[in-house]
């Protein structure tokens, strides 16, 4: 068992990071620039669309149905358009032949169902959400995120009782949520109930490696770099394992055409990747500042 512990080696043959070679300013610049860029994307989206993210059916209201038909996507669209229903999108499902997901902004679910059945489509699944219900879900999801984040922050401050190490954890958790949100915009992913769940999951996941790092640096004997290295060895394994699991899950679920899971997986991969950067560049730097300069003062 000793070989896993051979000093000076990160897991998965990753190259070692020599933190001593970089100044605090150098280290912290990259995560801060990425965070600012992510916030800029959200702000830009807000200016263009009036909402920082693109809300999906669950939050805007509308109708989504899954049909089986030998028609092509274009034919499906024209079938509905010719009857006055504005089709938002028609997506083929990879795992099933002749199956499509068709979405509408219209909340007249009954009429759309009648139309689909009238056109000879086999309706496998249908869901309709009224606009006001969607708006309410949206505000609730936001409240949920804010409470969850606030609760996490309060707990972290209670655990460490010092400002800089606590704010380091909170800041990187914040960035871990903002970066995936910006990436969702860039990749055209909508905010669904699944992605909200993933964002909340990220609060829990991302804090893991930050807590581990803080714990090793602040509560253990040993030099800063040695402690950081130990925490990193464990933390990087954790995060990479999760990324592997989530990538595999997202791809498999996508190929199978299972709803919800691909979006959850993708957002988690975004967030966990951001977490690697934030923990080992942002959090580490703030801790080093605290250890060498903050405490001395």
């Amino acid at each position, binding site marked *: *068992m000793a*070989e*896993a*512990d051979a*000093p000076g080696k990160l*897991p*998965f043959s990753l190259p070692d990071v020599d933190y001593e070679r970089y100044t605090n300013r150098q280290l912290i610049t990259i995560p801060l620039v990425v965070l600012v860029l992510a916030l800029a994307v959200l702000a830009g989206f807000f200016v263009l669309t009036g909402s920082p993210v693109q809300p999906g059916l669950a939050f805007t209201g509308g109708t989504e149905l899954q049909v089986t038909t030998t028609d092509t996507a274009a034919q499906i669209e024209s079938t509905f358009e010719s009857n006055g229903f504005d089709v938002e999108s028609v997506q083929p499902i990879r795992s099933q032949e002749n199956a499509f997901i068709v979405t509408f902004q219209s909340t*007249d679910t*009954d009429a759309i169902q009648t139309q689909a059945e009238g056109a000879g489509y086999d309706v*496998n*699944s*249908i869901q*309709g*959400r*009224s606009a*006001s*219900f969607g708006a*309410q*879900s949206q*505000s*609730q999801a936001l*409240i*949920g995120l804010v409470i*969850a984040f606030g*609760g*996490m922050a309060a*707990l972290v401050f209670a*655990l460490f009782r010092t400002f800089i190490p606590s704010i380091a954890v909170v800041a990187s958790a914040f960035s871990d949520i903002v970066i995936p949100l910006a990436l969702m915009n860039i990749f055209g992913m909508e905010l669904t*109930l*699944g992605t909200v*769940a993933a964002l*909340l*999951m990220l*609060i*829990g*996941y991302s*804090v*893991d490696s930050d*807590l*581990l790092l803080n*714990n090793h640096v602040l*509560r253990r004997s040993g030099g800063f770099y040695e402690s950081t290295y*130990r925490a990193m060895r*464990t933390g990087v*394994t954790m995060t*990479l*394992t*999760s990324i*592997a*699991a989530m990538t*595999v*899950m997202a791809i*498999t*679920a996508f190929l199978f*055409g*299972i*709803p*919800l*899971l691909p979006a959850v997986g993708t957002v*988690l991969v975004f967030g966990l990747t951001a977490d690697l950067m934030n923990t080992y560049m942002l959090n580490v730097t703030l801790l080093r500042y605290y250890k060498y300069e903050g405490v001395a003062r």
Partner: protein
Amino acid sequence: MNLSPRENWRIYLLIVLMLVSTVAVFVPLGGADTDGPTNLQYGLELSGGTRVRAPLVGMTAEVDTGNQNTRELAATVSNRLNVSRTDVNIRQVQNGQDTVEVFADADNGNVTQEEFAAALNAAGVEASTDDIRDGVTQQTRQTAVSVLSNKINSVGLSGGTVSTTTTPTGETFVLVEVPNANRSQVLDLITSRGRVELVAHFPQQRQNESDNGTRTVYRDVSLLTQEDFSTSNFQAQPADGGQPARVPVALKDEPARNFSNAMQTFGFTDEGISNCGYQPASGEDPDTFPGYCLYTVRDGEVVYGASMSPGLAETIRSGDFVKDPTFVITANNYSEAQQLAIDLQAGALPTTLDIQGEGTTYFLEASLANEFKLFSLITAIIAVFAVAGMVFLRYREPGVAAPMILTAGAEVFLLLGFASAVGLALDLSHIAGFIAVIGTGVDDLIIIADEILQSGEVNTSRVFESRFRKAFWVIGAAAATTIIAMSPLAVLSLGDLQGFAIVTIVGVLLGVLVTRPAYGDILRNLVLEDV
């Protein structure tokens, strides 16, 4: 190997809980309504069916109605608002605590809060829009829920549930879930209120004020509604022997007396016998149709017009009817009669569900749902292999990695046991929760493994315990953050996400309290054995 229960109690606890889970998941226990080889129950997203979530239409005024007669008050308010008398409901509790409900709002029935307040003022009740809120009272909701469940049960849709959920903003939704039923089937059943009335329609002579001559006017008097019947089991009967399709009913005592009196006063038992030729299909206006008719009215629409039969007229005149008040509610055909029987059995909904305006509907075909079930199982297995691969790659030591995968698997198995034991219906969101639990679980196991296997010999139990405790600080703190992050979702009614949050919280608790400590014990046995 050390098998002493005192030192390895965590492993023994895990084994015991695994056995309990096995019983919960696999052993058929009476009463559980499940399909497949396990006791697991599946929600709509994994079994197929229809879900409807919508608020009840209405406004409630909390006012002081004083000593006003509720009937008169309701009549005044309904007239002012131009809504049906049955759309106004008054509950007098005590001064200042009375409620007046109107089952209409700005979007359904075109009644605004201002108009409602004005109508109350006109009826002599002090009210402003501040006293009026959207939504109905708790009692009305309870009635609606029980009527809806009766309706679903009475058509034999098994496993359907009706409940209410309240959002943090105070809005209450009715949630109807029916497995294996399609959307239109469920909507047909729950969108109509199903209020059945028997209305007497008859001519009356009125004096003309202008020339002192007389003219004939037709009156409609509502005589019986759902509450007036004492029948416990309404059964529709098909048309036979000259009789139309019908539902036999028995009347309660007082309605029977009233009915008997009304029939005689209105003339049904004399000139009115066999004097109704109304055909709903003809399109004639039932309000001015000449004759003596007993209209079967459903939700304000006349579905059938029946004549007074000579036999029934005879028993009413003789007074036998009051002693044995049996009667039939008639319909055009058997399927209408069945609908009436369902309505009579289930009762009338106090108000309608606003599905179009503020509701959501969801339908998934059972075959597709079964595919999701199989595919998500495969997805989960593949994800576990990915984790296993990473862990082997990192430790290159089956003794460390294999128990890690087994422990993570045990965690999910315990969760499945929990789901079966509490009858949680599994949905896709729960699957996402399982994956979250495996993820945090493996993270924690890696922390434990790294802490215990760090350089420096572990040769005594004491060294082990101290390292284990250190590892546990991080695990405990991480678990606490996850639980805090998930708890708002567990209480918010975001529907799908509630299940996800509950599974994650329970999973993290099981992990921190049972499986992850047990993994520590397993590792200790492996490490101390080396010495």
